């Protein structure tokens, strides 16, 4: 594990160096139409002073609309009406700077879905595994932040190749993975330094104001149907609008819809984010809907985050505590409150 500092006046050089001379696409928190987002940006425009990006960074690996394949209809040419994959060969690898540790953990949860026990999603994998992910620790978690309650930390390291934190006069960095160490070695702007003590101190300070662990022991021990049939779901569902905001901003919501579009020349198959809050999401061709009302749909989301994902991912919580859904829910359905109710 190598440790470095980057002086303030060397920051821009360092960010430029991260692109490896333009070979990598550089993504960092930057403002786009009034919102801070993790986007491909100019190294000059990186923001270091922020709570968190407005939306989660999952879109870097799993864009809201992603073309999967295309076909043409020209019967004079070869292979008409045969789909050919798109976007797998030419994708330039990414380097992400400024991932919050909660979001990096969210990507790990997604990764275990996109690369599950039976199938590997090549569109995700080609982007995710080639990316270098450099985190930026949180010094000043926001009121709705609760990563510490679900097993994370504002200085958490999961899913990251290196973690940085802001200090007087610049940044400090610690590499976390072999790939991260290899990638950062010798980059312009970096100076070797001992930062261990400072990191430990800052980590402790940041965690001090944060909530303690959210007890999910009963949820973990209970049968699915026991939690599913709890009476509190109806109360929460009363006020849920099924608007889906929570799913669109969630770093671990990975559901999508596959759609075809075509014109006279050919067609595309693409995937678009979808939401379990939608009536259309589960409705069968026959009109039967296995989740007919908002109660089932709202319950599905919380069961998925807090019961199903832990069951499928060795106990790892499907919620990583970024607080986006808590802040943006128009009717203040707070996942922490729901988690407490589920735990009895």
């Amino acid at each position, binding site marked *: 594990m190598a440790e470095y500092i980057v002086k303030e006046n060397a920051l821009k050089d360092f960010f430029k160096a991260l692109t490896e001379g333009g070979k990598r696409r550089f993504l960092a928190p930057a403002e786009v*139409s*009034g*919102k801070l987002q993790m986007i491909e940006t100019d190294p000059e425009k990186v923001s270091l002073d922020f*709570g968190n990006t*407005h939306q989660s960074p999952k879109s870097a690996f799993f864009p*809201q*609309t992603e073309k999967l394949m295309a076909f043409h209809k020209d019967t004079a040419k070869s292979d008409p009406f045969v789909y050919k994959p798109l976007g797998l060969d030419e994708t330039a690898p990414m380097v992400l700077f400024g991932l919050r540790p909660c979001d990096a953990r969210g990507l790990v949860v997604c990764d275990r879905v996109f690369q599950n026990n039976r199938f590997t999603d090549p569109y995700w994998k080609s982007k995710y595994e080639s990316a270098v992910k450099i985190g930026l620790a949180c010094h*000043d*978690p*926001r*009121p*709705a932040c609760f990563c510490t309650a679900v097993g994370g930390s504002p200085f958490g390291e999961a899913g990251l190749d290196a973690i940085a934190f802001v200090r007087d006069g610049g940044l400090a960095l610690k590499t976390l993975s072999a790939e991260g160490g290899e990638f950062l070695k010798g980059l312009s702007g970096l100076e070797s330094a001992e930062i261990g003590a400072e990191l430990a101190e800052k980590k402790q300070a940041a965690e001090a*104001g944060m909530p303690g662990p959210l007890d999910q022991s009963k949820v973990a021990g209970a049968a699915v149907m026991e939690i599913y049939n709890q009476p509190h779901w109806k*109360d929460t569902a*009363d*006020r849920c*609008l*099924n*608007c*889906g*905001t929570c*799913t*669109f*901003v969630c770093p671990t919501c990975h559901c999508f*819809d596959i*759609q075809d*579009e075509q014109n006279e020349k050919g067609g595309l198959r*693409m995937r*678009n*984010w*979808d*939401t379990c809050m*939608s*009536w*259309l999401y589960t409705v069968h061709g026959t009109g039967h809907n296995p989740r007919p009302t908002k109660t089932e749909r709202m319950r599905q989301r919380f069961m998925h985050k807090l019961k199903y994902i832990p069951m499928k991912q060795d106990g790892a919580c499907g919620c990583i505590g970024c607080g986006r859904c*808590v*802040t*943006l829910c*128009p*009717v*203040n*359905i*707070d996942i*922490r*409150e729901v988690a407490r109710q589920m735990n009895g």
Partner: protein
Amino acid sequence: MTSLPDLNQKIQSAAKRLLAEGKAEVVIGCRQGTTPMTVAPIFCRTEDDCNQLIWSNFAKINLATYLPKYPGKVAIIAKGCDARSAVGQVVEKQIERENLYIVGVACGGLVDVEQIQAREPRPIRAAEEDWATIKLSGDGWSSSLPKEDVLRRNCKTCVSRTPEGVADELIGEPTEALPADDYADLKALAGQSLEEKMAYFKGLVKNCLRCYACRNACPLCYCPVCFVDETRPQWLGKSQDEMDTFTFHLLRAFHCSGRCTSCGGCEAACPMDIKLREFNRLLDEEVQKDWNYLPGLSWDQTPPLTTYRPDDEADFIK
């Protein structure tokens, strides 16, 4: 002016009385949220529930949204806009008048949390409110803002801050209605080039995620199957195509024309802070100009699109 604690007290006792008298099985109102500057709608069925009821400047969505889906007798703690929407739903025969009890509460306008955050970028750990002031505090600091400075845009042109005339009972001292929207900005825009108009309206929705939170938060959007969810044919593509998104917003607004009460619930629900009401205002302006109609102000109104006059003027029709 009634103080907020007083107002809350009155709301709570009204709610308890309604439950006790059997005038309602449930009273829908607001309670304190779990984070600063949030409130949560609450469905009160017990006295304990009623004790949580509050009036807050931070209320977000229009509570009438819940009414068409609610089967029984229901009371609603309603600001002017909530009450107007509820009346609209009765007029549109989505709910029965006998099943609805409106507890009207005088409103001095709601605040826009986004504007507060723009003025106060530090993490806000707590917020206190009274009728005219918002007090904020964080790690080692505190400040206060006049509510007037951070009012929601729709609240600045509210013609029915107090649901007088339609409420079954009224709590608080009636607040004066404000001058109606003069649509000055839209009138100015109308004089600009087609390109400028298009750029403005397409620009408004370029961040749209198509989550349809605006639709779900809207008290007018009670269709069993929304046109965006229709599949045969599928009217709208599901991708982030600009025109699909734009069409959604045009049709959403069109479906609300002559019905929108400018509650701002759509904008409050939008996770991307899109100024959705700009589309609605376009049509509101026309509805008022052509038919002088404001929805939700009385029980016996006829919505303009359900009727006609033989002499409706439409000189663009050849």
